């Protein structure tokens, strides 16, 4: 009989197989033109993103911090880390899960390998995300003072490994406590709670006292210099205890924050020692991990299934399941049922309740705006309302495109949609209803809030007699008299624009299902990122072209009526401009209906 395989060989075998198969699959897909084009676009984008600084030669090293700031960073970081660790000891439950997948459990748990080997397998496997995170964080953070990215990466790897081992040791230890007799268990928990709570309280009080001393005393406060900071930690109400408490956290952070390579290597032994101690805690704690591992694997699988289906959020609670956007009467136009269904796909919440929230927010902001008496209140209100308007218009246009609560999402159910007793045009129109309603209602809500903020100042001026000072000369549109026609313009044109954008997006999926896949599932990968960019560019281009007739109609109207009507010509122009856009959208709906009739679920959904 052969010896049991080593955990290392198992990890390398599974990692090698997974990477090889993933690479094969990705490379195989690149034979298809759409994936190749998507890959090239995505790769070009990311290359541009990452290599931009090197165009001028070697990337510049980030500026080095002054020496004392490195130390301050180390102490502050250690304090934050200590607080996080103490909080986990206070509140985190002991779920001794090894973090294995359902497949790994199925194959490894009944396999003839020891528990120790299984634990080592899990620890080694966890090193892949740890290394990947360290790599990404190194790229994102850039090189620090220690001179090389490798040392920064090593420092990050040490820190993340220590955090992983610590969390596992904590879970194992707490799980062990659960195996104690009830009396001992309670006593242990109380003792640990008291110790952790006291330590956390000591840190908070020490730093709080330092901040207060700095705020009340002369000079820059204790945290502006290392001496001041260390003095607070040494001579605070608890003496040198806080500094001693932070020691292990300083050790593990020191390599990462080392200002030079020499400092890195000097700090390395202590950090490695700490990691070894944590490893020993994990390896020497005998605990039953099977149930927790299985339970976590099931939860992860369920989460992955939801994510694959395009739903990141958890299932709604029992209480929320009774909430619907609006009551769906059993009689009436079937289109409304589709809008209702798609609104539920977006969010299980009542439209009436959301309207009440928006109204309350508008009322609160109106009151605040009317009651504020500070000198800068007028400028703040004007800028606030203008910003609210701009943000609303942007969000109203962009968010429904991302939700895919329309035909793009429902094509996943194309076989079912085909059996519904609805003409294709009516079905398409109903499918566009939910995202259009969300965008328009939220857009109008935002406009109402913008107007409420501005109206508050006007009401204050009218009833409390305070003069509304003129806005800055550079921004005449911030006047309330200007804001009203601008808001009306946005309110009138927004629905047409939203519907047109939705038609274009849905048409791209229906016309080119092989290129822009249907369904709510969000595919990942460089080639998919490239395809999404192409879709965005295509949509922008088509939408831009669709707006030309609107501009041709509205432009002359504004030109001829601006002088007599002022900004009030804009809402009129918006009405005129909305007409051709709506006509184009109607033609688009007709086109979408034909595309939907031609859509073959068997052929077009396979990809």
């Amino acid at each position, binding site marked *: 009989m052969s010896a049991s395989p080593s955990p290392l060989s198992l990890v390398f075998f599974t990692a090698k197989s997974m990477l090889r198969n993933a690479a094969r699959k990705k490379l195989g897909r690149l034979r298809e033109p759409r994936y190749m084009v998507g890959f090239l676009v995505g790769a070009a984008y990311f290359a541009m993103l990452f290599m931009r600084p090197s165009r001028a030669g070697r990337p510049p090293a980030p500026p080095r911090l002054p020496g004392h700031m490195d130390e301050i960073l180390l102490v502050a970081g250690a304090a934050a880390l200590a607080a996080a660790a103490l909080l986990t000891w206070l509140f985190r439950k002991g779920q001794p899960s090894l973090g294995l997948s359902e497949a790994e459990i199925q194959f490894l748990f009944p396999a003839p390998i020891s528990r120790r080997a299984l634990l080592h397998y899990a620890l080694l496997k966890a090193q892949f995300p740890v290394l990947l995170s360290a790599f990404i964080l190194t790229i994102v953070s850039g090189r620090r003072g220690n001179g090389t990215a490798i040392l920064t990466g090593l420092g990050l790897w040490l820190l993340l490994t220590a955090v992983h081992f610590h969390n596992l040791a904590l879970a194992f230890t707490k799980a062990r406590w659960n195996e104690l007799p009830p009396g001992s268990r309670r006593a242990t928990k109380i003792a640990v709670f008291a110790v952790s709570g006291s330590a956390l309280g000591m840190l908070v009080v020490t730093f709080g006292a330092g901040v207060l001393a700095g705020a009340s005393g002369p000079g820059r406060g204790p945290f502006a210099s290392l001496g001041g900071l260390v003095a607070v930690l040494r001579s605070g109400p608890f003496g040198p205890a806080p500094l001693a408490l932070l020691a292990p956290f300083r050790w593990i952070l020191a390599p990462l924050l080392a200002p030079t390579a020499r400092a890195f290597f000097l700090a390395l032994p202590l950090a490695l020692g700490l990691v070894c101690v944590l490893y020993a805690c994990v390896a020497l704690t005998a605990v039953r991990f099977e149930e927790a591992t299985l339970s976590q694997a099931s939860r992860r699988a369920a989460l992955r299934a939801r994510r694959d289906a395009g739903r990141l959020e958890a299932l709604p609670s029992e209480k929320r399941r009774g909430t619907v956007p609006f009551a769906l009467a059993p009689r009436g136009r079937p289109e409304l*049922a589709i809008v209702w269904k798609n609104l539920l796909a977006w969010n299980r919440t009542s439209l009436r309740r959301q309207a009440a929230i928006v109204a309350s927010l508008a009322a609160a902001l109106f009151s605040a705006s009317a009651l504020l008496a500070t000198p800068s209140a007028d400028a703040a209100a004007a800028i606030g309302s203008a910003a609210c308007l701009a943000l609303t218009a942007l969000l109203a246009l962009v968010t429904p495109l991302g939700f895919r609560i329309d035909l793009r999402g429902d094509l996943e*159910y194309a076989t079912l949609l085909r059996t519904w007793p*609805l003409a294709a045009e009516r079905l398409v129109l109903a499918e566009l209803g939910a995202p259009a309603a969300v965008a328009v209602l939220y857009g109008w809500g935002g406009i109402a809030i913008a107007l409420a903020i501005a109206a508050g100042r006007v009401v204050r001026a009218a009833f409390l007699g305070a003069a509304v000072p003129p806005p800055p000369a550079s921004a005449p549109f911030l006047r309330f008299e200007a804001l009203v026609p601008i808001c009306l313009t946005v309110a009138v044109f927004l629905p047409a624009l939203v519907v047109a954008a939705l038609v274009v997006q849905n048409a791209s999926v229906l016309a080119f299902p092989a290129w822009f896949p249907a369904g709510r599932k969000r595919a990942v990968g460089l080639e998919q990122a490239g395809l999404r960019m192409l879709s965005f560019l295509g949509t922008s281009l088509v939408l831009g072209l669709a707006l030309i007739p609107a501009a041709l109609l509205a432009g002359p109207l504004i030109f001829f009526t601006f002088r007599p009507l002022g900004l009030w010509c804009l809402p009129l122009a918006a009405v005129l401009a909305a007409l051709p856009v709506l006509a184009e959208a109607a033609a688009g709906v007709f086109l979408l209906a034909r595309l939907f009739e031609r859509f073959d679920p068997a052929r077009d959904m396979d990809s």
Partner: protein
Amino acid sequence: MIEVEGLVKAYQNLTAVDGLSFRVARGEVLGLVGPNGAGKTTTLRCLAGILPPNAGTIRIAGFDLAAQPVEARRRLAFMPDEPRLFEYLTVEDHLAFTGRLYGVGADAGARARALLDELELAGKERALPAELSRGMKQKLVVACGLLHDPEVLVFDEPLTGIDPGGIRKMKQTIVRRAAAGASVIVSSHLLPLVEEICSRVLVLSRGKAVLLGTLDEIRANAGGDASLEEIFLRVTGGS
């Protein structure tokens, strides 16, 4: 009533259904059987209006599926082999949605409750599809299908994933609907089920009808008291 005349459905290099003709009268249950790849699911999908046929006509309750698709679909219920449910709708949401979609009217709620009782889904009104077993999902699809009291019922492997008690209920449901005047097609690999509940049988092989008739007619043509399984294996070339 279902009337199919000269139905042809071809994919790129495969004719899945080749000149198929049959009728299912009111109150009749037609069993559609055949080996894997015989064209059963394609036939049913054409009947449900999911796949447009390349040739031939399909009439559902007197309405031509190509010329009057909405009227035809209003009278039809298709229960696929793989239940497709909206994962964000609860059981009661699915029924409310279907009721409005098919214009069931004011008694939709009462009908939904009766169906939930009949199909043993009572108490699961607030459950989401992710919390239902495969069999329960299948039952919910059937409940949605029966809600508008369709004249034509098309079942594709209706018993997959259902427990023995559920199987008995499902068989009763199918027979009861036929007795009430519905035209029913049941596609299944379970030949005993077909023998038990179907009044006529259509055996498909490579897209063509190789046998069509009542069980007695089929047995008589086969010359003896052979079981449906023996006849099926003989005509489809199975071992």
